[in-house]
């Protein structure tokens, strides 16, 4: 097996492939992710300001905010699509080197993302989708197809729970419903030992029944002991699965409320009041 695959393959390596914190430090670190004073400018436009956010090790954060509030920008920084202008962040207590941080590094650090519609190659079979970007290889970069299929089948039965549906590693993505596709993406993230799974509007294009399936998968993230940032427009969904709500507006975090402190009604009212409040401010 080549070195690269070894690095990224959770079964065959130590918890920290990047030569990260010692065991003592890791144990002391209670946060999956800690962002400190993150700022992002696009030219002169300030997209993110003064972002300080901690996500606990088995915590599900519901990230709420209007379009343009900066949710996507924050997610893209976390997942290595582009670097912040200033600030720093830590994943499992390990400081991220922002100069070399990219999607592959984010994966190695354990940050996995499930997008609304960009998670799977739709014409490809499932086993390829599980391992794309971090294939299990034989010498000279050839794929270990047998092993990839074996593991893909195991994930589908044990992690995702596709039982008795006639869906195997050889099935094409086309055969799956929208909710099941997100299930595959979530199962993949969990298999690769994610520290943090970011779900970016995973239910935006789905029917109610499929949304229900996705929420069940998110519950599995919680049961699996992982951390999660769940971004959605649907307050009801966010309320059901989150431990804490983080509300963003115009590039800033404006509130962080634990679920036990608030009811769905109160949260909804708060958001409404908040946007009305802003409007009043603008008006005056």
């Amino acid at each position, binding site marked *: 097996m080549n070195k690269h695959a070894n690095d990224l393959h959770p079964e065959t390596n130590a918890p920290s492939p990047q030569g990260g914190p010692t065991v003592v430090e890791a144990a002391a670190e209670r946060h999956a992710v800690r962002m400190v004073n993150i700022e992002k400018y696009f030219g002169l436009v300030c997209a993110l300001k003064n972002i300080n956010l901690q996500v606990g090790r088995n915590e599900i954060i519901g990230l709420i905010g209007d379009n343009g509030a900066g949710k996507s920008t924050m997610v893209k920084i976390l997942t290595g699509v582009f670097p912040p202008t200033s600030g720093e962040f830590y994943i499992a207590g390990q400081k991220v080197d922002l100069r070399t941080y990219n999607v592959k590094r984010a994966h190695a650090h354990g940050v996995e993302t499930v997008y609304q519609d*960009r998670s799977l*190659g739709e014409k490809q079979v499932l086993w390829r989708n599980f391992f*794309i970007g971090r294939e299990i290889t034989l010498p000279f970069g050839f794929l270990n197809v047998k092993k990839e299929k074996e593991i893909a089948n195991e994930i589908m039965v044990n992690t995702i729970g596709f039982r008795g549906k006639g869906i195997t590693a050889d099935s094409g993505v086309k055969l799956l419903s929208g909710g099941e596709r997100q299930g595959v993406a979530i199962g993949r993230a969990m298999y690769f030992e994610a520290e943090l799974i970011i779900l970016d509007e995973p239910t935006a294009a789905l029917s109610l029944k499929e949304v229900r399936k996705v929420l069940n998968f998110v519950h599995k993230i919680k049961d699996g002991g992982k951390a999660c940032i769940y971004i959605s427009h649907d307050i009801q969904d966010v309320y059901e699965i989150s431990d804490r709500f983080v509300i963003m507006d115009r590039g800033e975090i404006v509130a962080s409320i634990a679920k036990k402190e608030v009811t769905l009604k109160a949260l909804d009212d708060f958001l409404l009041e908040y946007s009305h409040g802003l409007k009043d401010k603008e008006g005056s």
Partner: protein
Amino acid sequence: MKRSISPLTFLGKIEGLPVAAVLAVLYGVFIITAPMVFSGYRIYMSFLQTVPPVLVCALGLTLVITAGEIDLSFPAVVALSGFIFAWVFKHVNTPWAPWAGFVLALAGGALVGYINGLLVARIHVPSIMATLAAQFFWYGATVLLANGLQLNIKEVIDTTVHTIFVGRIGGIVPAQAFWALGLAVFLWFILNRHKFGEEIMFIGDNAEVARVMGINVEATRIKLFTVNGVIAAFAGLLLTLEINVFYPTQGGGFLLPAMASVFVGGTSIAGGLGSIVGTFFGAYIIGSLEAGIVATTISGYWVQMIVGIVMGASIVLNVAISEGRIGMISNRIRHWGVPAHSNTTGEVSPKDVAASK
């Protein structure tokens, strides 16, 4: 959304089978209609001699099309590589000149492909435009370098390069057929069993998905075009070695047959999936048609039209099988004779429902 499973569906699972079947039927028809020509071995040996250069181009093109791109510049590379080889062979006076020419010709192809790759991946020029410009430029450059003249290199027959690549095995079988077959096998493994091939498929499927899954899309595209340049240069070498001459417009007729081979072989222009096996048989279909039709003594005016029919039929067959619609089509054919009020789009009107009750 349950699909009725036709007993023929499994046929779609075997890569290239429908295309191979079309080729077999085609040869069957030729054997019946032109027994004098097609019952002997000579015509097949002649195909094994003439098809490989186009086939090699088509194999490379299969990878490019699978990645959702197109390369129109390979005919120019066929000319350029032929020129480089012939020039080095004529002007460098050492025993290893043929090998030097061979390697330099491949390097020339790599350079052309690399530049294509840079234009497409870094500057984001759509590949159809970048490679169209490249095809004019490199044909022009070749004509300029060659002063518009052909180079006769008949002494090449006595070299080992000639024997190895286009010699006659057992005095009969052209060696280039084996090189083309070997390349097809190799590229099948690259596309279906290698990281590079998987990256090509995901980029062709959805480049954005590929990017968020950590594939370096730019680098892979550059690599892909470079590889295709080398493959086209190899095709040019096979051609020049076989005919013992370089001429500035060589490869000019390769563009459409090579593309036809890829599409007849079942690779979709949409990208994401490609069939090397299909391209292999597709190239032999395209390469055999003209000679075959002429041999049947039909008037030559029929050739193009029959080529069109065979191409169209194999493409329809491919689409039908790959989408698992063989069963649906055979059902429809059965219903064609019945003047029912069913409509072609397959929608069911209330009247149909009432009638079925």
